[in-house]
């Protein structure tokens, strides 16, 4: 599953602005229990880079705000067209979501967020 969004507003983890709901790819025919997050990449083009990008995963945005989620390594002060990325493999419960927070100086500009993921069983995951 690869998702991509474009927006001209600050990514704040809300719908259409940095919110990726993994549960939408889970259905009755797959009984897998984890999402394998393979990569997250955020890019701001058109001349001005981002100042801070934070990636968090949790059951809800409220849980992130309440410090009950997991925050991934974040990146600051990226240049124009430089990608803020998470490249390690992470396994999260299928009910969780990914929230991207990205701010930039001098905006707004187009923001591209690409999330690569797929549903796997933990047994499969342990084979990676």
């Amino acid at each position: 599953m690869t998702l991509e969004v474009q927006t001209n507003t600050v990514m704040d983890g809300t719908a259409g602005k940095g919110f990726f709901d993994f549960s939408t790819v889970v259905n009755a025919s797959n009984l897998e229990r984890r999402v394998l997050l393979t990569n997250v990449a955020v890019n701001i083009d058109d001349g001005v880079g981002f100042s801070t990008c934070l990636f968090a995963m949790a059951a809800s945005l409220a849980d992130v705000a309440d410090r009950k989620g997991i925050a991934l390594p974040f990146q600051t002060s990226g240049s124009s067209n430089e990608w803020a990325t998470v490249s390690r493999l992470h396994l999260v419960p299928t009910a969780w979501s990914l929230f991207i927070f990205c701010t930039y100086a001098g905006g707004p500009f187009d923001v591209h967020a690409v999330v690569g993921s797929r549903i796997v069983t933990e047994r499969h995951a342990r084979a990676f």
Partner: protein
Amino acid sequence: MPQITQTLAAGVNFDGTAGNGLIDFPAASPTKAGDDTQRVNVITASIAIGQVSGNARLRDVVIAFGPSLDAVKDDGNGYLFVADSDVHQFVVPLGLVLPPHWLGFVFATEASGTFIKTMVLDYNRVTLAPVAGGTT
């Protein structure tokens, strides 16, 4: 930066249990008087898992975090940081901020022979204020 270390005898695998891969942050670094324990998160910096010496290898190395061991098993609501398999040493920056009260679990199995193995985790406990607009 605080460290949690464990050394396992030859023939003993990391299975996430006490002394064998359970990372108990609260026990290692108790909160101070006056701390709001609901707000003390853990920042994991890096972890190294491997044998003390020699060329034997580990398989199915998985680093997991969650409120309990059950939570990081199948059908649980914990989180797994996928590691590696068939490795001599696994050293990786984590850079994760974990919810309060969560524990760490290391899984690794001897792939060739038996050998003494170690785990070293660098971490910090910090008190995070809630994000504006979030629940408290």
